[in-house]
């Protein structure tokens, strides 16, 4: 049997070709059904169709080329890990595979079943040798945003170098001091890994680059406030997901072009759903590729998703880091403070998130909010009680759903979502 160029590369990376082939064969039709069947998509999504069409190919090849020249690849799981250090030191940060049921049974050979799908899926990707991104990376950076992940990282470290950042549970003086130190330690870790020093110049450049991408995402978010919505929630989610492992400058270009196109659409009053379609904001757990389940059910029922209050949404791009600071110490402080503003449910209290959800709902003119949490994600599931109360007070309808990557509850989910849309 002759191997394709991709298969040759995957085999060199230690990928289980047979299993991986099944995964890839499953992804194509799913993408076709969920994405390519959409009507009136922006042309700018062509790039993302191309990326997903070769999802484990071209980008992995770039990362390998980079590694061949001595460059480092740093894999991350979470928006808390400051990617600016990687770019500054000439390393490439990528977020890891995690969004499919396919790798869950593999993980369940080791991990408890009642662990969230994101943890199981990502661990299964490594255990089953299914993810070229983890295979090609030199360091995996974890964080302590949840206990399940924290312990999974210890198991993952048996297979590949893992470094864990401690995220405090409180934004107190002590919590801030801890995080400031963690950020400085992480900088030292990246310098040690790459052999490159992080300076005012290269960090300043990196901050500008990542900020530029964040600004374009914020612009995209603002454009989604239009009625009719110029882009589907599925497409906007995909752009965010891809940005998390693609080159930062390329993504800024791509989103800029997409935004320019969407701006034209908004001017002309064109959209992907009829004017007046029910507008939904999604809030809660992140959705890694190819977890498009909830977006697909909602948009198949005739509504449009206008925003994601999540780590694969606003938490990824909302806050900027001040630019033009002239000394490294102050830059590090500013950078750490920016990341500490991430409204993750790991914080107690986390009232900022409630304010953020309400602000997003109003800015985006959402008719209702669907709070999504992965089953066994205890922080988001418990915080949903407070989200429920805050939204009742604000007079914004809410539907809470708890699910995972499997399709076993698709019928029940659809009924609840249909009923929610009917009541709006």
């Amino acid at each position, binding site marked *: 049997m002759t191997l394709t160029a991709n298969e040759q590369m995957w085999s060199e990376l230690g990928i289980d070709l047979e299993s991986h082939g099944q995964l890839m064969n499953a992804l194509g039709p799913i993408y076709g059904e969920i994405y390519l069947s959409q009507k009136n998509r922006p042309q700018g999504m062509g790039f993302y169709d191309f990326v997903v069409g070769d999802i484990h190919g071209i980008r992995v090849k770039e990362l390998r080329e980079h590694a061949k020249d001595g460059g480092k690849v740093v894999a991350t799981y979470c928006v808390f890990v400051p990617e600016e250090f990687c770019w500054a030191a000439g390393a490439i940060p990528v977020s890891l595979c995690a969004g499919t049921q396919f790798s869950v049974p593999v993980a369940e050979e080791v991990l408890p079943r009642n662990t969230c799908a994101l943890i199981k899926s990502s661990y299964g990707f490594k255990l089953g040798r299914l993810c070229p991104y983890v295979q090609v990376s030199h360091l995996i950076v974890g964080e302590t945003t949840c206990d399940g992940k924290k312990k999974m990282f210890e198991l993952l470290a048996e297979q590949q170098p893992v470094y864990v950042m401690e995220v405090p549970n409180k934004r107190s003086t002590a919590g801030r001091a801890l995080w400031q130190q963690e950020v400085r330690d992480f900088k030292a870790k990246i310098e040690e890994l790459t052999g490159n020093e992080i300076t005012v110049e290269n960090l300043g450049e990196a901050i500008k680059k990542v900020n530029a991408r964040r600004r374009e995402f914020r612009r995209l978010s603002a454009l989604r406030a239009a009625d009719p919505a110029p882009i589907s929630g599925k497409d906007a989610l995909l752009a965010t997901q891809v940005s998390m492992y693609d080159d930062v400058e390329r993504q800024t270009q791509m989103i800029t072009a997409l935004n320019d196109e969407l701006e034209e659409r908004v001017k002309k009053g064109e959209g992907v759903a009829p004017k007046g379609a029910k507008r939904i904001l999604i809030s809660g757990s992140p959705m890694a590729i190819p977890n498009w389940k909830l977006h697909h059910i909602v948009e198949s029922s005739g509504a449009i998703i206008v925003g994601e209050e999540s780590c694969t949404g606003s938490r990824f791009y909302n806050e900027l880091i001040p630019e033009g600071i002239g000394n490294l110490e102050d830059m590090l402080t500013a950078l750490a403070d920016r990341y500490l503003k991430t409204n993750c449910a790991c914080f107690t209290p986390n009232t900022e998130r409630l304010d953020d959800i309400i602000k997003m709902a109003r800015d985006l003119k959402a008719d209702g909010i669907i709070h999504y949490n992965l089953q066994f994600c205890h922080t988001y599931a418990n915080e949903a009680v407070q989200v429920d109360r805050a939204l009742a007070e604000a007079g914004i309808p809410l539907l809470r759903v*708890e699910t995972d990557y499997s399709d*076993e509850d698709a*019928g*029940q*989910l659809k*009924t*609840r979502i*249909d*009923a929610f849309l009917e*009541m709006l």
Partner: protein
Amino acid sequence: MITAGLDLGSRTIKLVLFDSGVRSSEVIDSGLKPLDRCRRLLGDKQYDKLVVTGYGRDLVAPELSGATISEISAQAAAVRFLYPDAASVIDIGGQDSKVIRLNEKGGVLKFEMNDRCAAGTGKFLEIMARALELTIDEFARTSLEAKRSVTLNSLCTVFAESEVVSLINKGEDAHAIALGLHQSVVTRVSGMARRVGVTGQVIFAGGGAKNACLVRLLEDKLNLKITVPDDPQITAALGAAIIAANGKNQGE
């Protein structure tokens, strides 16, 4: 104008023909080919509009030129039609349990529904009846006759079945087990009812309402009076027919 409401439940298919009141209704088993069964059920019946609800609504509606509506909106519409003062609905179906609160206009204000598993549904009771070698009617009667109950710890259908087997093997009385099982369902459903905040006149609809033991236990647990429609199994289908009459177009 005659409208048809079709409810494709997980266990049964219900059809109601409506013309300012229920003209006729039928209930058949869902089987493995629900679309064929629906076709046969509609047969040569005359109606102007069709609205389909229930699990299979998206499969069947386009094939039969009908519109779709969720079971939750359908129940709300039916209950409001039957009881203009109704404020809340409890629906225990084959696969799903729901609690709905209605607004002043009879629309859905708030609802809760079980996710994924059969805990607290008709399916749970069916499987437990089988474990006790009783028909579903005998099972309900047995628990009504019970002098005492045993507490079942598990709400999971599979775990509860194991628990029942171990109780049987301890020599426990079937009446007490049956009552304990009904209480399990009521615990789950009343938890949902409290979260939704049931108030006012409460209507118990869906196939589960045919079980007198569930009705009595729910009344006790929630400490309120519950009204059961004459034919609680067909209310979702009736609601779909009413929604068709109120303007959901064929094929919409």
